[in-house]
């Protein structure tokens, strides 16, 4: 009896992994080309931009909040970074892009604290508003035109490497992502600041009573999210070699979806970046597999929606069954 419960528990806890395996097996049977090295590289490349944005989002959600401003951040950081390559060189542009993202995240955090927005609903609307502002600035900045790296006179080799370079079988962006993941997970698990994020998501009142400054933690998670959105944006422009002022559209929902599908509770308090990696993988694989199988775009969108709904339903069931 004890044994069956354990199996059930393991299955329930690793449903995403199970979903990924089933998806891969089905696709590989129908389309054997799915299992080639080329497709592996493909998936790793497509993994790039979303994985960074979703990782940043993970800690906001663990902290019990949500950030819709990643759309605006990705768009704005992208166009600003690309436009700075000519005047200040590629390394400077890269650094400024990351700095801008971090600042935008910090700005979000400070505004939320100043406005006393401490519930998920308030945060939802304020970050949505911030996203519109960032997005509109991006549109004004570029005259709503797409910028192209091919028109630059300075070299942009760093970006080409980040976007399409490879070390062995791995793409440069995935290596950067793994390094970022290790650092941020260490920070989240091993430092006091990191633990406060989970504490804040679990129970704000208790955390405040324990003497922790929740406002600082809130600013911290949004700053992290801004930085990661900027990294995502840089990987994105490096990959496509263009920066569109509306390039961020859709990233907020995909990022939140990756986090939730990965198994981080929307209510906050628990979760991890590693789970999000699985969530991102499922979303990327879903579109890769559907393209391989020749499924139409409309059906792909339905599938994506279904996965999200089922993930949240299973998440609730899992909670009930484990406890």
């Amino acid at each position, binding site marked *: 009896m004890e044994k069956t419960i354990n199996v059930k528990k393991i299955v329930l806890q690793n449903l995403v992994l199970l979903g990924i395996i089933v998806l891969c097996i089905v696709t590989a049977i129908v389309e054997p080309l*799915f299992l080639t090295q080329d497709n592996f590289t493909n998936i790793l*490349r497509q993994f790039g931009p979303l994985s960074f944005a979703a990782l940043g989002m993970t800690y906001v959600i663990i902290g019990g909040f949500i950030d819709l401003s990643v759309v605006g951040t990705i768009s704005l950081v992208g166009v600003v970074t690309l436009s700075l390559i000519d005047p200040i060189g590629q390394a400077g542009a890269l650094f400024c892009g990351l700095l801008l993202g971090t600042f935008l995240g910090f700005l979000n955090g400070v505004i939320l604290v100043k406005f006393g927005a401490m519930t998920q609903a308030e945060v939802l609307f304020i970050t949505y508003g911030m996203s519109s*502002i960032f997005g509109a600035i991006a549109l004004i900045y570029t005259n709503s*035109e797409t910028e192209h790296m091919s028109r630059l006179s300075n070299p942009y080799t760093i970006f080409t490497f980040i976007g399409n370079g490879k070390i062995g079988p791995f793409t440069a962006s995935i290596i950067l992502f793994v390094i970022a993941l290790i650092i941020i997970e260490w920070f989240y698990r091993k430092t006091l600041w990191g633990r406060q994020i989970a504490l804040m998501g679990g129970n704000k009142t208790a955390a405040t009573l324990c003497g922790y400054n929740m406002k600082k933690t809130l600013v911290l998670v949004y700053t992290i999210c801004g930085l990661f959105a900027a990294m995502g944006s840089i990987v994105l422009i490096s990959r496509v070699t263009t920066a569109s002022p509306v390039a961020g559209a859709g990233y907020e929902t995909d990022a939140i979806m990756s986090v939730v599908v990965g198994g981080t509770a929307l209510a906050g308090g628990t979760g991890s970046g590693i789970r999000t990696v699985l969530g991102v993988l499922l979303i990327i694989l879903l579109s*890769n597999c559907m393209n391989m199988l020749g499924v139409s775009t409309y059906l792909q969108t339905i599938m994506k929606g279904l996965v999200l709904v089922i993930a949240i339903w299973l998440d609730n069931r899992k909670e009930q069954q484990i406890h």
Partner: protein
Amino acid sequence: MKKMIALLLATAMVGSLAACGSGSSDTTTEPESSTEASTQTDSTDAAEETTGDDTAASGDAIKIGWIVQDMANESQSYSCRIAEEQAAQLGLDFTYYDQAGDAQKATDAISTCIAQGMDAIIINPADPQAVVPALMEAKDAGIVVGLFSSDLSEENQQYRDFFCGTNDTMAGEEAAQAVIDAFPDGCNVVEIGGQSGHDAQVKRHDGFEKGLEGSNITVLDSQNCDAWATEDAMAIMEDFIVKYGDQIDAVFCHWDNGATGVINALQNANMEDVYIVAVDGCAAGYDQVKAGTQAVCIGQSFSNMVAKSLECAQAAVNGESYEEINWIPLDIVTADNVDSLPYPEW
């Protein structure tokens, strides 16, 4: 220190809010007011010179309400910008509104135009069906109604005075013809569509399908994107490369900036000799044709489209004759003629 930071942030916020207002607001803001001022001065002499009809008699410039489909869309905001410039040259009183891709906002903008006593409304509707009731009201109020880029369906065409646009179905057909011409012995082509369900995507796809009918060209696969995003086009192309590899001889991508992603994907896979056809005629398309990475760019001339719309609106308001349906010819841009055509500004 804290106060300083707060003050700084507040200033930045106010600044960004003000900046945002001028970009995507629903009604006229700063840039227009300056244009209005200038139009009013040059409009008086222009109107007096050219016409002796009722408009000139009243001494007012013709008031044009330009309703943009979505200012966040590159080609649409470019059209709006040149419309503003051309209207100033023609001495028209020009105001633009942004429907931000939303049918409800389009209806609101039309109502505002009626209330403001516009002489003509020129609209590129996000949903041509949804604006019909509002356009009926505008017609009742005696306002000239022009459709830009997307036309109303046939049964509703009585509610508009004229239409100017390029034919997206024709663009698809031209793309098919380009592929047929390049591969007289037949070939394999993949199609990467624009935003799934968007009017232009549907028509370009239909035109392409129609154009290929009866030819010996095989369409290996066709997928649409979630948005007009280069990243989407690139990801789909990468998947196609894995699935079909060297079988792919040609690619039809629905828009030039998407073709940039297609080119990147092909270059990463060392497939440099694939024949790429795309629609739009933006600077990126011209650059790619010049660089030899894109074979054909099927260009729509927005400046001709805008000029025709304003010309028709002016004629309609003045009671002069004009064509009801105006298809603006497409430019077929290839390496042979790219240098002789005017370089696009968007």
